[in-house]
């Protein structure tokens, strides 16, 4: 809702000045599990009222008002920083941003993006505060038609369509198994030595360090090296 208010404001200004509106939405791409993201959305909904794809709404609304709208491709990152970086590229006459009106715990934990942009921006900033549903009714109608499906958190990797045989599943599995053997053979062999050759396992070789202990400790670096080697080799299939 604050974003819609800001979009509408930007359009109003652009109409007066006969200017172009650049739309920027920064996804907060943090390593979160699905349920965490869902919890975020539910909370976001409390503040914003709608969850729709911002740039899409702006484009549609621009067509409605006859205003030139350009979308700026965005990468995930610190939100304020990303907005400022886009600003440096676009060199706008003005940045329009919505204030979500968070307070209390939410504000303490999430901070305010609008405030951050205002503080650091080298360009004039207009911040919309609060909103009136009736005033926003036209853009709201568009947003409601473009509600984002709720389940698009995890993206399937996009893969080339090729015949199954060319995937080299067998070769890949061979590589994996080979690498696995490098670690698993000495790992299981330690079990064998411990159970059948106890005298050998308890022979001290370095000070009081026994064969069994040295073997065990050596498995850690071996495992890490196996992982690194596999990563190198497997990159060929990426």
């Amino acid at each position, binding site marked *: 809702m604050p974003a819609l208010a800001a979009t509408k404001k930007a359009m109003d200004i652009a109409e007066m000045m006969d200017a172009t509106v650049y739309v920027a939405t920064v996804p907060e791409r943090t390593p979160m599990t*699905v349920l965490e993201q869902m919890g975020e959305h*539910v909370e976001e909904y409390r503040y914003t009222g709608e969850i729709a794809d911002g740039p899409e709404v702006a484009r549609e609304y621009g067509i409605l008002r006859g205003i030139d709208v350009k979308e700026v491709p965005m990468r995930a990152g610190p*939100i304020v920083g990303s907005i400022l970086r886009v600003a440096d590229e676009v060199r706008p006459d003005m940045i329009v941003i919505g204030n979500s009106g968070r307070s209390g715990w939410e504000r303490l934990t999430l901070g305010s993006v609008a405030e951050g942009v205002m503080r650091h921006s080298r360009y004039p900033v207009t911040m919309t505060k609060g909103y009136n549903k009736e005033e926003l009714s036209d853009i709201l109608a568009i947003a409601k038609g473009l509600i984002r499906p709720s389940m698009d958190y995890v993206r399937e990797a996009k893969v080339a369509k090729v015949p199954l045989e060319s995937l080299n599943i067998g070769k890949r599995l061979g590589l994996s198994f080979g690498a696995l053997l490098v670690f698993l053979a000495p790992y299981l062999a330690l079990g064998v030595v411990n159970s059948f050759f106890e005298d050998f396992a308890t022979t001290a070789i370095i000070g009081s360090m026994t064969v069994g202990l040295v073997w*065990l400790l050596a*498995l850690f670096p071996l*495992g890490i090296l196996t992982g690194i080697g596999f990563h190198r080799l497997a990159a060929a299939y990426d």
Partner: protein
Amino acid sequence: MTNYVALSIVLGLVAVSLLVAIYSRRYSRTAAEYYVAGRKVSWLQNSLALTGDYLSAASFLGVAGGIAVVGIDRAWDGIGFFGGYIVLLLLLAVPLRKIGKFTAPETLTTRFKNNRMIRMSAMFSVVLISTFYIIPQFVGAGALLQLLLGWEYLFSLLVIGVIVISYVAIGGMRATTYNQIIQGVILWMAMALILILTVVNMFDGNILGIVSEASQTIPPEYAAKELIGDPDIPEWSELTAGAAVAHVAERLTGAQPNALTPGVFAPGWMNIMALAIGLVFGTAGLPHVLTRYFTVERPRDARTSTLGVLALVGTFYLMATFVGLAAMYLLYPDLMGYFLAEEASIAQNMAVPLLGQLVGGNVLLGIAIGGAFCAILSTVAGLLITIGTSVTHDFYKEIINPDADERRQVRVAKTAIVGAGTIAVLAAIGLADQNVSYLVTLAFGIAASVFFPVLFLSVWWTKFTSQGALATIVTGITISAIFVLARLMGMDDIAGIPVLVNPALYSLPAALLAGTIVSLRTDDYGDVENFMLLAHGVELEE
């Protein structure tokens, strides 16, 4: 007699970890700097989050604690927990991320479309394994409060249970990832600090000194059993470590095991192999570990993240091994005293904090207990979230109410979280005297028998069938659950088959075999073409 110094450090540490987590989230939103290295940060963040999620009370308290009471056999826990990530890296990490589903059950139904039997049995397994994994966390937490505040175990358990469950259900369900990262860092540093101070203060800077003392020490749990009824029991608290070790050695004549003797805990090849197999294949089947792979940004990051985890947890368990051996010797009077006073719950799990107190006073005791709480908090949060996600996504939305909106789903997830958490607390009441790492290895055994085989076969075998998948899950869960139950009830064998320290020696091969045989006789390969393309295909640039 409350230890206020330690208590305030514990509270401080937990508070700091939560505050730093909150701040870093805020910073990532409002920082003015735009760093191009964002992507690199993401895999490092993920490694740390995985590590924080993975290192639980079992790793922090249980591995070293177990080594301290029975010796080198329990070092299998550490190397097995570590090796599990290698299996995961080599066989499943990248394909699972590429398939890109929310939960392990959904990954299966991506291949075997609309197969509700598979989805439900897998969902049930997620809940069972994760709940079982939570129990030892609460056992550890209860013992910690017992040690820190002198409360009764039961009371401690209920208090900590209510705190942890409400933390996850109310606030922590959002953005726990940041907490995992911070807590991962705290855990690693706490273990390093304890080891360094132990070596410097007690062994004149010579880490091999630990081994030479341990090689002369009879494991306390074993010794305590042998000494039951012995008339000459000294006042343990008045003895030095060396004197206590010498006293026990004098009472127990003949060939006795020391800290480096294999077979004290897991006698015979079947027990050792059961443990080794259950652990190394268990990680790749743990639902909360698999879930976290879905948060990795790009599929190849799944590999780099895992390499980071290997380095972090590998060094962690290396340190824990030495800490455990040092604790056996240095805490010998305390451990013997607790065992013979029938306070096994402290003896089994509290070696790390007690060693911290010995080498670094109440400050390090506080850091160790605080670190353990962080471990418990982050792991239980990860587990409960996994349960919530699976119940909501695989069961509620799939079967009960497909049109549920997000608000409704989050509410269902919270209900499931509170339910599973409560069950875990109740179960923890009966398992107070078990080593927490041991209990976790049992959860690993079940995971190794269910999700590892079924995911492995699904991802790598084009001729795997839906009937085979169901057979794998059902066989794995049935056999492993029966043998875990039998073990906890103290049974020696089931119909002549010996009950081992871990069920996986039977249940993993059985599950693989069942899946293979049934698949060879049936032909519903599912959507194998698209599934394999997803899992192994070459990614297109976006």
